């Protein structure tokens, strides 16, 4: 693949987004174009993976300007893997949004395309300032998507959620921007290849880059700056929650991996801070999840815990640790989106995601139940799903790096993970549907989750849900099923992705290919 095609990953979706607005409200045209462009982006990612099977990197400075002035795009195995998984998730979530009528707004397709441009750009850029710009390009459509709804159907609660989301992201972006300013002031450049290793030698640069990393970890929702995620994400629509969970926090995590590998050159002095904070992230996130009582807020809080796992890979900074971290990142994006989409399908058809107000889904929606079950077990790390491979390799990596305490924390948190998944399982799927829900509270055999669900207001709602015929059609169930299928494949054929992740990790440990590619572009 020619390096000069890399900017197309950004240019194509962006131009199409503009054109779709010009051509106005034509639903069929919008859908066709959206999926064509997303498919092309995904295909490009796959081509890049094939390109980098033996390592290496490709870079292109837009307009052939000299290094430091040009807008640099660079791709290696890590980028390619991320491009493929984010592309898959965008396609799947867009399909879900269309089926659930969430995508019926005329601005939906252009916004998704602009979002894709931002995500691809943030993954491909080799320049800190451009990273800021692309994250903004990614966030601006997200703000609109956050409260986008079929005309007039958005609940007011979503506006409050959007206020929190926009405010937090603006604050974070400003912090990142100040960090970039400091980097330029101390190092005289913001090009990652020119900055390579500088933070290890120069304390002032290290501080400046640390500010950028701090901003990225707010976006990634690591403890102690995680509070926004569990409050903001459940307020938007299910399709968008799934999409954001797969893209936004993960782009920030990608940024942390990349910046620490290139600019800090994996400096071992600061790694203990990461190990400590990310172990805390795992523990606090999972306990927060157990305390919630709607499906999406449990899953969102739970994401915080999983982010701890993913970031532990970079805090270990060994080849094994980075490989496991990257594998975990890719696995998590797929599984989490699957969970959000399967519970989202129930929320769309039955009108509520609250535990206890929708019950007996195992009988009524066996397919959705099976999908949720697979994804939940994968998340908890039960074989033969991808979560097992991810967790096992991460635990082995941390023991290998001498962080036995971190390994113990991981195993314990896994158990609580299973508990929080069981809470959804027992609350939504397993509980038998009863005509009189008030009996539930008195029933001693039901799970402990039930007494917390005294919501008399929703009783009338529950009473109407008596249909035995599945209400969730194949089209609505398919997105989460596809993702669940991927987690099974990745679990059984984990060797393949582990090999690719190892190549990606090698690219982070030895950044010379990356630097040479950027400097030579």
């Amino acid at each position: 693949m020619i390096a000069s095609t890399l900017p197309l990953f950004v240019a194509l979706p962006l131009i199409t987004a503009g054109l779709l607005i010009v051509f106005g409200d034509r639903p069929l045209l919008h859908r066709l174009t959206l999926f064509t462009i997303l498919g092309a982006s995904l295909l490009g990612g796959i081509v890049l993976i094939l390109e980098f099977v033996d390592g290496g990197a490709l870079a292109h400075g837009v307009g052939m300007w000299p290094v430091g002035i040009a807008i640099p795009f660079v791709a290696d195995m890590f980028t390619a893997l991320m491009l493929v998984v984010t592309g898959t998730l965008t396609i799947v979530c867009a399909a879900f949004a269309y089926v659930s009528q969430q995508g019926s707004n005329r601005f939906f397709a252009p916004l998704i395309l602009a979002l894709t441009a931002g995500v691809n750009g943030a993954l491909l850029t080799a320049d800190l300032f451009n990273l800021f710009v692309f994250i903004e390009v990614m966030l601006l459509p997200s703000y609109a998507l956050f409260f986008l709804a079929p005309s007039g159907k958005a609940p007011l609660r979503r506006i409050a959620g959007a206020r929190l989301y926009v405010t937090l992201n603006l604050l974070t972006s400003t912090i990142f921007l100040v960090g970039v300013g400091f980097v330029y002031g101390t190092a005289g450049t913001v090009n990652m290849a020119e900055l390579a290793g500088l933070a290890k030698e120069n304390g002032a640069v290290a501080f400046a880059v640390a500010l950028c990393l701090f901003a990225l970890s707010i976006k990634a929702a690591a403890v102690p700056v995680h509070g926004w995620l569990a409050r903001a994400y459940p307020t938007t629509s299910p399709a968008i929650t799934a999409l954001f969970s797969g893209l936004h926090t993960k782009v920030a995590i990608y940024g942390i991996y990349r910046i620490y590998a290139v600019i800090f050159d994996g400096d071992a002095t600061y790694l203990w801070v990461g190990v400590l904070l990310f172990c805390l992230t795992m523990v606090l996130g999972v306990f927060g999840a157990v305390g919630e009582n709607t499906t999406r807020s449990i899953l969102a809080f739970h994401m915080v815990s999983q982010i701890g796992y993913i970031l532990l890979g970079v805090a270990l900074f060994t080849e094994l640790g980075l490989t496991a971290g990257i594998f975990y990142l890719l696995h998590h994006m797929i599984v989490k989106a699957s969970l959000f989409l399967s519970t989202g399908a129930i929320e769309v058809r039955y009108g509520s995601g609250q535990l206890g107000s929708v019950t007996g889904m195992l009988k009524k929606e066996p397919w959705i139940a099976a999908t949720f079950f697979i994804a939940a077990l994968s998340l908890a790390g039960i074989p033969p799903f991808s979560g097992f491979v991810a967790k096992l390799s991460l635990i082995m990596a941390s023991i290998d790096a001498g962080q036995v305490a971190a390994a113990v924390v991981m195993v314990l948190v896994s158990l609580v993970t299973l508990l929080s998944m069981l809470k959804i399982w027992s609350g939504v799927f397993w509980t038998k549907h009863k005509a009189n829900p008030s009996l539930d509270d008195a029933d001693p055999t039901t799970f402990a989750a039930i007494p917390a669900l005294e919501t008399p207001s929703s009783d009338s709602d529950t009473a109407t849900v008596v249909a035995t015929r599945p209400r969730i059609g194949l089209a609505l169930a398919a997105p989460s099923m596809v993702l669940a299928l991927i987690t099974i494949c990745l679990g059984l054929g984990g060797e393949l992705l582990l090999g690719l992740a190892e190549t990606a990790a090698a690219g982070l440990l030895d950044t010379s290919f990356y630097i040479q590619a950027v400097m030579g572009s």
Partner: protein
Amino acid sequence: MTLAITAGILVAGAVYLLLKPEMLRIILGFVLLSHAANLIIMAAGNSSRREEPFGTFTDLTNAADPLPQAFVLTAIVIAFSITVLMLVLAVTGKNDDNTSVSPPTDADDAAPQATDDAAATTPGDDAATAPTTTQEPTS
């Protein structure tokens, strides 16, 4: 030094406003904060020992660094567009000062139909905000 002090004062004012409960004050706080960020970037271009980029300069080493100015230009546009969006969010809905997310267990989650009449004010915001945000990346 002047730049540093100005940025410091702006940040202090911004933090004070951000801690206030009302959305409008928070927005004003962000206006101050983004100005402070822009001044910091300007300062990063070594403005203390350099002169203006146009007009009287003779020596390129003394001319102001154009790169931070390009950064600031980009950052201003982004901050401006988000400020507009936040202003729209501030006036949308009944309770214009509510920045807290009500717990997801409240009634409108269990029965989305019930909020339809309450949400009748929102079509205006869809129409008003979506173009603002979509134009931004393409420009």
